[in-house]
């Protein structure tokens, strides 16, 4: 079985795990580099002009101010010089200065990333903890009510528009029932805990502030459910299909013939073999959650990278867009690498081949 994964091509050709790992790391670094080049070229070749989006109309009609603006942000330099400046900066840990916020892009990213990591990790765990058992149960009890429930949930999960789901959840649980708090990471009346990790659920207990912890946790409920919906659908669907596939194999028949209990067959034989596709999907899904929070964050006023990305994109804030792309590409490549490695752990054939 030739396995194609994310940005990294096929796996499982090298005899030695270490050599395999080294070659994958080199390819990964190259892909990140190429990704920045690609976004650099795209963002510079398209006709949009950051001068017009940043300066007001009056200033944009003043040639002197425009020239000053271009010079300040290096927009008057040739393309390759600008790319070279960007690359040397990256090597020194400098992603440039955001045109929009006037702050170093790296500082912006470091500030906004924890909120996104918090939200997408909770959403991912939610999707995994509900989707995996639901998929397994659906496959075990095919055509029962639980199978129908699982299929309905996965269908609605992958088909419902995130932004609409967010609206419905807010309208019902915040507007009508008042069970959940409104948008934002914590209530306006709550003081944020001193920043250690930037993740509220960790920082609040560290400061011994459990009221803030529960406030932050309650604010996470609606956005994480909304963000988890499509991932939950995909994981349920994939787990169910993979379990059914593995249940139809000969080794299951053998295990049954040996007189193993149903439980032993399911958990000891069927599930481990069904996990491979789920792991691939899970890894990609987590990468997508980390980067796909644009809609959820903008509706729930969540101070994360998704909202920052959106604001940078509409302002044509090139330094910020480049920085985000670099981070996003690195996350994708890293998660793909982890998926590959977990393949080798789950399936001994991959590293031995």
């Amino acid at each position, binding site marked *: 079985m030739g396995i194609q994964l*994310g940005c990294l091509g096929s796996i499982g050709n090298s005899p030695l795990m270490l050599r395999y790992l080294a070659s994958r790391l080199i390819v990964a670094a190259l892909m990140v580099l190429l990704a920045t080049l690609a976004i650099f070229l795209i*963002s510079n070749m398209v006709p949009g002009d950051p001068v017009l989006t940043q300066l007001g109309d009056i200033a944009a009609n003043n040639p002197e101010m425009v020239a000053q603006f271009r010079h300040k942000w290096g927009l008057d330099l040739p393309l390759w010089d600008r790319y070279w400046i960007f690359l040397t900066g990256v090597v020194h840990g400098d992603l440039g200065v955001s045109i929009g916020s006037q702050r170093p892009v790296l500082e912006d990213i470091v500030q906004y990333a924890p909120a996104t990591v918090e939200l997408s990790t909770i959403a991912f765990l939610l999707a995994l903890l509900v989707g995996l058992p639901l998929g397994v149960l659906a496959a075990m009890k095919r055509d029962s009510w639980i199978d129908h429930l699982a299929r309905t949930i996965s269908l609605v999960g*992958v*088909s419902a*528009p995130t*932004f609409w789901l967010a609206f419905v959840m807010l309208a019902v649980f915040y507007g009508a029932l008042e069970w959940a708090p409104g948008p934002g990471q914590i209530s306006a009346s709550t003081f944020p805990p001193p920043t250690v990790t930037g993740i509220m659920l960790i920082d609040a207990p560290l400061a011994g502030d459990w009221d803030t912890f529960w406030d932050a946790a309650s604010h996470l409920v609606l956005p994480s459910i909304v963000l988890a919906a499509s991932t939950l659908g995909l994981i349920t669907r994939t787990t169910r299909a993979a379990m059914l596939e593995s249940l139809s194999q000969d080794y299951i028949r053998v295990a049954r013939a040996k007189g193993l209990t149903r439980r032993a067959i399911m958990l000891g034989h069927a599930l481990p073999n069904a996990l491979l596709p789920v792991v691939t999907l899970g890894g990609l899904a987590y990468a997508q959650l980390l980067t796909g929070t644009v809609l959820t964050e903008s509706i729930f006023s969540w101070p994360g990278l998704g909202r920052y990305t959106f604001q940078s994109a509409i302002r044509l804030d090139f330094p910020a867009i480049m920085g985000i792309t670099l981070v996003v590409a690195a996350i994708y*490549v890293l998660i793909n690498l982890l998926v590959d490695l977990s393949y080798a752990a789950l399936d001994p054939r991959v590293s031995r081949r």
Partner: protein
Amino acid sequence: MSGAEAALLAASVDTGSAGRRRRWLRRYGMAALGGAVIALWALAALLAPWIAPYPSDVVNVAGRLQPPSALHWLGTDVLGRDVLTRVIFGARTSLAVGFVVVLLAGVFGSLFGAVAGYVRGWAEEALMRVTDLVFCFPPIILAMAIAAALGIGTRNTVIAMLVVWWPKFARLARSLVIGQRSAEYVAAAQAIGFGPTHILLRQIVPNAIGPLIVLITLDLGNAILVFAGLSFLGLGVVPPTPEWGSMVSEGRELVNQWWVATFPGLAILTVVIGFNFVGDGIRDWLDPHARRR
């Protein structure tokens, strides 16, 4: 085709037409339902000017934000426009964009991947690395950057989506072509003396097209979702144009006037579910092995 033969075989095993009908419904009922939903929306889109109860852009501030009633079945929005009318007209944009994006990206990506899979060697490597590169970007971020840079408008958003949409088809087409390449009929065609273009387009592609059609169908819903998302963010259509994503956006703050955002969202949901049902149905039909599951 083997899928159709297998379906016939399976059907003939049944005895009696009632049993056959039940089996058919069990197997293709959902696909038929999905097809019906899509057909209804397509009809609504085509006949919008004749079946919509009101003109789509007539503003009536005095009658704004009215709840659903006999006059306005789905209520009115902030500017007093009839929500039902705008939902019906919105089907035009959503369906058209979905079809255009997926068909163009599907044809381009499939050809790209098919050529890569057929030529092999360094050319294949180069083509597939380009594919991987685009694949590395989460589509919505790249599309957002491109759409923002090109300026707001349906055409520009479609272009932005096309740039990020084709690689999945290229990957699938390449693996399909590689699978077909060593088949005997290809060797036979080579022996007869057909050129590579003929073999690829006339011999291999027709044999490998099934899974591509499934992906295209399943992807239509996806494309509609992403476009609606971009529209919701303000990067899709120019304001007075009725479009489902931007309609939800207009009603996003109106928790008490829930009808403004709820109905266009339901429209998206039903269309996407429809395409998912049809895609699953086509997959089952093409792959008798999956059908048994």
